[in-house]
């Protein structure tokens, strides 16, 4: 791989509008030039302090893998090249078998990182990723308990708790203690179409927020751990520092985004012209308030029914739709609430706040982009974001501007933040040890083997000695 591949990768992002970082490259990058085999020069149209981290850095599920120019430039349409086993790569493992049951990767003997002295040779010689298809998660859990699997996708609290009880060799990120997981970058909110009645009324949105009891969520779902949130970003160290800044604390005190108050919620609903019917549900013009929560059973099976019940207690006609049309309903902007995350900020709050910029606010009748379900549009908010976009996150002006934007997010209840997202992944020490945990972060804080950084988890494993 040389700078030629890097230039090809970046120019591809500029050229093809279906690629993940097309908007960032098209908006911010003026030119890409290879200076020599190991150096490229990027010229920006305006200061872009977040570009390196947000776009170029591989983390969680984002960042740009550099693609091989030689292979892809020979394809009719490089954005649709199947790739499969043919595409050259620089990773430690080659795919040697791939069918509907499993993918098998073998360690390549010629891995450049070992030759270059950058990494020790990985102890894991073969990686088998089994397709669990639609096998129930309970059975997958049993297979981990029986040492058939070393790890799996993340699980709900009760299931991973049972696994830890039944097999002492299995650990979670937090050992055997709740909440079992580490913070993912995907805090979940109850989103809504802010352009659609009755959700277009900020008071109605606030009334919904006031009906969410975050303390109870922590108690019921997380055994008291403070996982419920009021922020659209995860509380990673730098973001936690931002959240604790006096500017943000002032906005928080002003708008009380985490407040649970059914009386105040009721007052706001009455002020918006709603009245409770005989069933205790808000009703207007003969129709109850449709607060159906669109969600995904495999990941929201625990939280969504609890939220629906809280909303019903407050008079909203709420239930849960776990159907396969849930995502489509969010994109189409149908009436109701959408349980979904904000995959945006990791270091500073800009990208999370930018999700609500008016330039992404699609009209009713058109589809909303991913993570743009709120369709919120407010010139005051946009101006704040435009002003802080070129600033570094350590700049005091950035912090005060971002805090004001966050204040508007709370004031207008653009969405209702509910929980930070946890990756509760079981790790089995029976055959392999040195799994990532809160006390073993040597290989990074993201222990998901499926993420862009997943190979760090696998290449860091050591045999436990069991056969």
């Amino acid at each position: 791989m040389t700078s030629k591949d890097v230039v090809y990768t970046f120019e591809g992002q500029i050229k093809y509008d279906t690629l993940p970082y097309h908007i960032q490259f098209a908006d911010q990058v003026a030119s890409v030039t290879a200076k020599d085999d190991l150096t490229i020069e990027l010229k920006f149209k305006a200061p872009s302090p977040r570009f390196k981290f947000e776009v170029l850095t591989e983390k969680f599920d984002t960042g740009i893998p550099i693609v091989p120019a030689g292979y892809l430039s020979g394809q009719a349409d490089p954005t649709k090249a199947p790739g499969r086993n043919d595409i050259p790569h620089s990773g430690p493992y080659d795919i040697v078998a791939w069918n509907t049951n499993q993918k098998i990767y073998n360690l390549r003997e010629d891995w450049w990182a070992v030759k270059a002295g950058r990494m020790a040779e990985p102890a894991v010689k073969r990686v088998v990723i089994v397709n669990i298809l639609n096998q129930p998660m309970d059975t997958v859990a049993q297979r981990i308990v029986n040492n058939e699997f070393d790890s799996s996708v993340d699980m709900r609290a009760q299931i991973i708790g049972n696994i830890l009880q039944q097999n002492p060799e299995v650990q979670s990120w937090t050992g055997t203690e709740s909440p079992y997981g580490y913070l993912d970058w995907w805090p979940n909110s109850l989103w809504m179409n802010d352009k659609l009645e009755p959700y277009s009324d900020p008071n109605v949105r606030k009334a919904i927020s006031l009906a969410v009891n975050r303390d109870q969520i922590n108690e019921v779902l997380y055994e008291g751990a403070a996982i419920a949130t009021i922020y659209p970003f995860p509380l990673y160290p730098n973001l936690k520092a931002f959240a604790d800044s006096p500017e943000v604390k002032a906005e928080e005190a002003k708008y009380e985004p985490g407040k649970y108050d059914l009386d105040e919620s009721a007052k706001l609903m009455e002020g918006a012209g709603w009245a409770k019917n005989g069933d205790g549900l808000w009703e207007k013009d003969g129709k109850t308030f449709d607060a159906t929560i669109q969600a995904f059973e495999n990941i929201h099976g625990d939280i969504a029914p609890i939220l629906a019940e809280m909303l019903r207690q407050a008079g909203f006609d709420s239930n849960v739709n776990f159907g396969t049309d849930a995502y489509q309903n969010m994109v189409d902007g149908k009436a109701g609430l959408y349980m979904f995350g904000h995959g945006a900020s990791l270091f500073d709050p800009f990208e999370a706040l930018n999700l609500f910029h008016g330039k992404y606010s699609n009209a009713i009748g058109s589809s909303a982009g991913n993570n743009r379900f709120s369709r919120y549009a407010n010139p005051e908010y946009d101006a704040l974001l435009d002003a802080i976009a070129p600033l570094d996150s350590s700049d005091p002006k950035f912090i005060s501007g971002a805090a004001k934007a966050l204040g508007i997010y709370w004031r207008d209840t653009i969405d209702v933040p509910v929980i930070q997202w946890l990756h509760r992944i079981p790790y089995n020490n029976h055959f392999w040890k040195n799994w990532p945990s809160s006390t073993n972060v040597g290989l990074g804080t993201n222990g998901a083997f499926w993420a862009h950084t997943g190979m760090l988890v696998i290449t860091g494993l050591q045999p436990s000695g069991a056969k």
Partner: protein
Amino acid sequence: MNIKIIVKRLLFFVLVVWAASTIVFFIPRLSSRNAIRERFGELARSGGFSPGDIEKLIASMQQQFGLDKPMLEQYWQYLGNIMRLDFGYSLSKYPTTATEVIAQALPWTIGLLLVTTVLSFVIGTLLGAVAAWPKAPSWLRGLATPFILLTGVPPVIMGILLLFFIGFRLKWLPLGGAYSAGIVPVWSWSFFLDLMEHQILPALALILGSVGGWVLSMRGMGITIQGEDYVNFAEHKGLTGGRIFRDYYLRNALLPQVTGLALALGTVITSAVIVEGLFGLPGIGTALNLAIRANDFPVIYGIVIFITIAIAALMTILEFVYPLLDPRIRAN
């Protein structure tokens, strides 16, 4: 058999396949769901995937899969493709074709579901016949009782019980998968043994609950036939018990069972969806289940049409086989 009847049956076969193909083409399209958007949604919620312009990407994919063309044009193209058994690319597993998905899944379903259905039929029919045959030893007749007790236990319940006790608690057999993780399927004795080990629990889940049904229906038929004149006549002629059992008793009682078998084969796919999912087997049922969940039209079309052709062909063959089993049909 009369040539006119054969032609009529074959025409009926073609009509069934055409009708099923047409229904299966239009039904998924009545839904407002968009398979490609749902696929991106799945990527988004599982990994934060965020394409540059999702609408452009969706439009581009729609064009690639031919979903942007008028419905009637898609339909004619679809019928033409069916004639060549070409169902196009899977929407959720691109660039795998729907035919490849079916070809990969089919051996698992045939290997497990078809074999267990036929095995249940054979075991149940023989046990039922023996249970009703007064001259059979009592221990042999008693063999049917446990199966009758298990009649009607759904495969999914049986599967969960077997998984929990045999797989999880006792650890005698694997908890799922078609074969052990990391093994590459090759024609070898060790792979065959591993494969069989993984098929025992799903096979038991299917067989244990269904044998009783065949036992009961066959026993009922057997008891009815015992009083028939031709059975009494055969006894008075002095024929041996074995001959009477085989030629007079079993053969006559078998016809409704064979009809039942044909119907049971038609419902194999229902069991496949449940049992294959429970045991993590990559058969047709699982492929269909995943395709429906992903609104993957080409794979849904491919599987449903394949099943339709298979069942219609089976029924047609049975129509031709009946006269061989029952001379009275042949004479008429």
